[in-house]
């Protein structure tokens, strides 16, 4: 484990940035968000960014290909190029897990070359959550916020940052910054882990369990009468989807530039009435169906196809961002009939 004192953290960022594009959470009027580091950018103390870290691999819009038109001629232009290596700093355990969820989708055959390209060129420096929020429930899905995954795991204390390489890529990076860091015995990190685990006990959603859900529950929940009440006040906006680290639906659209077509993909939400409205029309015609789809997907359909892995990481973004305060926790509690894990 390597250590660097916090007053020298800028040196660390500068050293990484000398080699890679470095992204880290910074504070803005609208809360924390990932920005490329430059001299003067300060690491945010917020627990989580408003938008999740999925943007790095699956951005909201991205160009897929171009068609150049001239008169009646059309030429197809492949706009793909190899991404440069980049580092994402400060990813929390929940978001790190979300990459596993997304990998299941985008790296399964046929692989999504755009996603894969970025994934392969990334280095993830995760960060343990010193102070989880009341909206956090990652432990429900077996995530340990005190020991996130990633290439390097970081612990930030009052005065120092501790870094522990988990992969070869991570170790290589730590090696590169050896000159500005010092070796550490890991005590401080262990101490913080302990504090975090104690704090988890105090979280209001600590006892929430997903045991009642899983790939085999379609029949049980699909026709549940509770969906009606749960979905009644849903506005059908895409806030939950767009802040969710695991939502991965997209639409492919053409933009006519006047000189040709830019074919791009952009996030879509199963909450939208226009969702998958292709030639056949949207298959889910009421907000109830669309609402149900989102939660059934996360809690039932996705595990069914992915060895029981839930498509929720308990980051709590939807809990704090939903305009009408309806969210996956309320759904789980209502459908699970308030069942909680015995402590």
């Amino acid at each position, binding site marked *: 484990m390597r250590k660097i004192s916090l007053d020298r953290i800028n040196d660390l960022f500068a050293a990484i940035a000398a080699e890679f594009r470095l992204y880290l959470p910074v504070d*803005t*009027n*609208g*809360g924390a*968000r990932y920005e490329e580091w430059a001299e003067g950018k300060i690491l945010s103390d917020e*627990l989580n960014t*408003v*938008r999740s870290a999925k943007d790095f691999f699956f951005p*909201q*819009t991205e160009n897929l290909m171009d068609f150049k038109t001239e008169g009646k001629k059309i030429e197809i232009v492949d706009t793909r190029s190899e991404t440069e290596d980049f580092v994402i700093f400060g990813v929390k355990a929940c978001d790190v897990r979300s990459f596993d969820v997304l990998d299941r989708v985008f790296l399964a055959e046929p692989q999504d070359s755009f996603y894969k390209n970025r994934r392969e060129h990334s280095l993830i420096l995760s960060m343990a959550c010193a*102070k*989880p*929020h*009341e*909206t956090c429930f990652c432990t429900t899905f077996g995530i340990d916020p005190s020991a996130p995954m990633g290439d390097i795991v970081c612990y930030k204390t009052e005065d120092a940052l501790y870094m522990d390489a988990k992969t070869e890529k991570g170790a290589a990076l730590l090696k590169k910054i050896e000159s500005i860091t010092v070796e550490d015995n890991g005590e401080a990190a262990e101490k913080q882990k302990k504090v975090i685990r104690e*704090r988890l006990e*105090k*979280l*209001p*959603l600590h006892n929430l369990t997903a045991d009642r859900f899983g790939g085999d529950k379609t029949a049980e929940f699909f026709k549940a009468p509770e969906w009606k*009440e749960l979905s*009644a*006040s849903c*506005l*059908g*906006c*895409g*806030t939950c*989807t*767009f*802040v969710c680290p695991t939502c991965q639906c997209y*639409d492919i*659209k053409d*933009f006519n530039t006047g000189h040709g077509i830019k074919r*791009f993909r*952009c*996030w*879509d*939400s199963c909450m*939208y*009435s*226009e969702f998958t409205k292709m030639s056949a029309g949207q298959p889910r015609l009421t907000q109830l169906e669309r609402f149900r789809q989102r939660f059934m997907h996360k809690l039932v359909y996705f595990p069914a196809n992915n060895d029981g892995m839930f498509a929720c990481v308990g980051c709590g973004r939807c*809990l*704090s*961002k939903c*305009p*009408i*305060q*309806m*969210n996956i*926790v*309320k759904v789980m509690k209502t459908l699970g009939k308030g069942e909680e894990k015995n402590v």
Partner: protein
Amino acid sequence: MQAVTREILINKAAELLGNGTVDRVFGWKKGEFSYDVTPALFTTREAMDADFVFGDFCGANFSKYLVAETRKEGKVLVFLKPCDTYSFNQLLTEHRFDREKVYVVGIPCSGMLDTVKIKAVAEGIASVEDNGDRVTVHSLFDGDVTVSRNDMLPDRCKNCKSKKHVAYDELIGEDGEVIDSGRFDEVEKLEKMTPDERFAFWQNELSRCIRCNACRDVCPACTCEKCVFDNPDSGVENKAAANSFEEKMFHIIRAFHVAGRCTDCGECSRVCPQHIPLHLLNRKFIKDINEFYGDYQAGAEVGSRAPLVNYTADDPEPAEAVERSHHDA
């Protein structure tokens, strides 16, 4: 602290359910935390006793829900705060629902708390206690923090335009007055900036937009069957802002579409996950309308003619108007 309690509202609802005036109640349902109340329907006193809440986080404007709610059989009871009643009237003006199917109980409001501001006070909110002038936030790890209640109000409540109900069947408590608020101060501040500063300000704000459509979907003036931005046939459809032009396009046109109809309820800014001050766009239109064509408050009365569907022979010319909105600043 709210002047009206949960118990009063439950009793009123039970009375109206009991005497058959209404067959369901649109209210707030308690959530996991003190601040995450959800709009919900109740049909019995028992259900209300169990889950109904009323307090500092019941800010959602219920008027828009009536569009869908009144398509159902029977009559619904809805509790409306003063600002909600303006949206209520505006929707009636636009024939968006049947007045006969709603029973409105006007309730006083002393301003709703801003969850974002509360969360900025402490990390890990266990609960929030309102003691009148002061608000105490009990946090999970750091103990209690007490702050001025006024500081915890969102801009729309700090600059509340009216404590007066402009529509109701019945009123709980005393009705208030229209307030001469400082709601245009922020707009004026922007007007006084140089164009470059204004451009930088909005570029920064709007660049955060993720086009989740929460502002539109919550807006009581946005009740189109299908929004032009969702409609591939409109020629301006766009699902995600692929560049900064489209961010501006969406918000300018949305503000223009609700210009003269927006009651300034502030829901757009409340729900924005990126905290974009969208109400400053709407308020600019309201301020301009007031200055160019005389004071107009959308929703103040049912059936009033909105400024954009009206004119006089001596309205200012566009160049003059733009100039005026500057120098008055």
